[in-house]
């Protein structure tokens, strides 16, 4: 198609540059202000190996578990299906430490399963890490796969019925190609998310064998104040991410793997026996739902002990979250516009760079930002705006992943008409593009809002009592014996996060097509 007007390109390049500068570029201020050359020690290679190993295994396991679940949800309709799909978003949105306690309330040594079976379950170690990573990411992958199913033309399904495809034939001729297209992107996303796992890996990992690069970065920054080592480790992490991202992006379909926007059940020919699908859905609901119930039961007793600060903290969290969401989605839209119009290597590299921003360590970004701006403004006076900005940046990869296929589709199908009519940019944006991508936009807004709501990495760096957000309050309560109140705060945080997510997501799903 014809070239898009120059301002769009400039805007996209600008937005992408900002995101890359804040994420990947964050190592530069660290290196500049470092006192000596960074060094890696022998133990770092073991850390690197373990980081890679657990991330790869988590990605593999998540995608494997998501296949039967997504397939069951794609072809079965049942009462409450829509609710299940919304709730599927929940685990992804739960703050890490709350989720870990929720998981342990089910699978821990003193959890429900141990209690019922009478055996003392021990999930600490690789098992625990993988369980937590699957808990967080299974819903994400499932929604991505569902999008793949939704993209199958109904004619293919009719054809399959007419030609008398067996479930096996359907797998070979219809499902496997979808998986081939969507799985690399989904696996990549999980891999990148798990690459920076820190609290989960350590808390459930059972010992120092389960050390990830992110922990080493934390140690270098917090305990040793070795900025160059932190920069070096951060570069190692980014390099790893970039390599894997480029391999997968180049091998897979670009833009493949949206986030499950059209989620109506498909009339896929179903196997006669519904039990496989029922089992998949039930197992997933149990695995994802029980820890959620667990954290509700942990949270309720502390409700009366909630400190007065909770309300203000919650308001601050909501404010940060909404600001971060609006910034993030604007940036992602600007980038998506550019990538969708300019296919080719530059766009691919741009997308890759933005994606690996996922693996940027919040601690590194925060510290770098601090060093970069401390000569001009007082970072602590701007704790909340900075938290919003950094979270907005960290949310861009997700928002982009969701919005890119949508923007791509709208530009392809309606762009030529709009151009030939000479629509003004404003009219194009407000009457064509935004309505066209509303579903995706709703989901992106919801996800980023949820993310920013749960932020602990940045606010812990800049925050103080006057700028205390809900996660910070929760952590403060935990740090002073008030476990019950902390868990109640955690529950409120989860409920608030889910609500804000559901509001955006529902708004998007109301889109008229």
């Amino acid at each position, binding site marked *: 198609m014809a070239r898009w007007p120059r301002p769009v390109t400039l805007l996209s390049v600008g937005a992408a540059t900002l995101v890359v500068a804040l994420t990947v570029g964050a190592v530069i201020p660290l290196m500049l202000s470092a006192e000596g050359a960074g060094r890696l020690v022998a133990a770092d290679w073991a850390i690197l190996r373990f980081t890679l190993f657990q991330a790869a295994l988590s990605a593999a396991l998540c995608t494997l578990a998501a296949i039967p679940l997504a397939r069951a949800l794609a072809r079965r309709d049942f009462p409450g299906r829509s609710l299940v799909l919304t709730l599927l978003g929940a685990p992804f949105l739960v703050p890490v430490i709350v989720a870990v306690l929720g998981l342990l309330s089910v699978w821990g040594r003193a959890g429900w399963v141990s209690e019922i079976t009478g055996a003392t379950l021990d999930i600490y170690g690789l098992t625990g890490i993988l369980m937590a990573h699957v808990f967080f990411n299974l819903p994400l992958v499932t929604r991505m796969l569902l999008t793949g199913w939704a993209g199958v033309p109904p004619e293919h399904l009719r054809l399959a*019925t007419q030609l008398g495809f067996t479930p096996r034939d359907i797998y070979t001729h219809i499902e496997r190609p979808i998986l081939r297209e969507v799985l690399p992107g989904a696996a990549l996303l999980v891999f990148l998310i798990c690459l920076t796992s820190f609290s989960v890996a350590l808390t459930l990992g059972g010992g120092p064998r389960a050390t990830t690069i992110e922990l080493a970065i934390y140690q270098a920054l917090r305990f040793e104040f070795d900025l160059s080592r932190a920069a070096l480790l951060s570069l190692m992490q980014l390099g790893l991410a970039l390599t894997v991202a480029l391999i997968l992006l180049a091998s897979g379909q670009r833009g493949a793997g949206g986030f499950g926007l059209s989620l109506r059940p498909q009339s896929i020919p179903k196997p006669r026996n519904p039990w496989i699908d029922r089992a998949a859905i039930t197992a997933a609901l149990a695995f994802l739902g029980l820890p959620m119930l667990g954290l509700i039961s942990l949270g309720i007793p502390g409700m009366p002990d909630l400190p007065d600060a909770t309300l203000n903290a919650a308001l601050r969290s909501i404010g940060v979250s909404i600001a971060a969401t609006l910034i993030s989605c604007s940036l992602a839209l600007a980038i998506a516009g550019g990538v969708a119009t300019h296919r080719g290597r530059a766009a691919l590299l741009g997308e890759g760079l933005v994606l690996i921003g996922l693996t940027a360590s919040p601690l590194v970004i925060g510290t770098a930002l601090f060093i970069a701006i401390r000569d001009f403004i007082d970072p602590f006076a701007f704790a909340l705006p900075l938290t919003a900005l950094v979270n907005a940046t960290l949310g861009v990869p997700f928002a982009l992943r969701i919005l890119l296929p949508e923007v791509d589709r709208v530009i392809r199908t309606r762009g030529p008409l709009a151009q030939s009519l000479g629509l003004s940019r404003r009219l194009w944006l407000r009457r064509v593009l935004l309505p066209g991508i509303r579903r995706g936009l709703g989901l992106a807004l919801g996800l980023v809002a949820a993310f920013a709501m749960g932020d602990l990495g940045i606010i812990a760096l800049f925050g103080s009592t006057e700028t205390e957000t809900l996660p910070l309050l929760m952590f403060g309560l935990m740090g002073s014996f008030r476990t019950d109140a902390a868990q109640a705060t955690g529950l409120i945080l989860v409920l608030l996060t889910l609500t804000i997510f559901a509001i955006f997501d529902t708004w998007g799903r109301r889109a008229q097509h």
Partner: protein
Amino acid sequence: MLSIDTLTIRRPGFTLTASFEAQSGSVTALIGPSGAGKTTLLHAIAGFVPPSAGRIRVQGQDITDLPVSDRPVSMLFQDHNLFTHMTVFENTALGLSPDLRLNKRDRERVTDALERLGLSTYASRKPEALSGGQQSRVALARALLRNRPVLLLDEPFSALGPAMRADLAQILKEVAAAQNLSVLLVTHQPEDALRAADHIAVVADGEVTPPRPARDTLTNPTPALADYLGDWRPL
């Protein structure tokens, strides 16, 4: 022979009733305004849409309640007839075996079918490398291999240029005669109906008028067809 006996199809907002027969060895065109229910009728015959009353018979056998894949029917959709990740050969071979396990004899039959439709050189290509007309012919080759007595086509001419249209019309007439098929096709264009079909049935106002010889139908149109045709007259 395909016979439709007081078939009633109810969908939100409209009802279609049909009673007619389509001869074996000949092509019958369904013509009429958009939204009249032409495609829905094909879907009902193929089994994708359950009728609320009436029977569908093929060579005397009642197929109304048969599962889709057991019906003596093949259907070509308007679009997406081919799996994009499979070669032309594989797409065609699905007509013989859904799991693509082919013996030597099967392979020869696929090759023959492709040759008959002038597609031999494309056997190992992917559908994306083919023109719209060629893609339709691949789907047709597959339907021929299935060798079901009824062949349904939903607007097979819509994406084709004049030469291709003539070409496809010719092929349809030939295969209908050669394999003694009842071919039912949906079209918007009276020229196409005239060129490809022996008979024409008009679908309008919730009814299907029984097929009459093509030229006769168009030269002496019913009031509903006359409205649809406007100033158009056959040459």
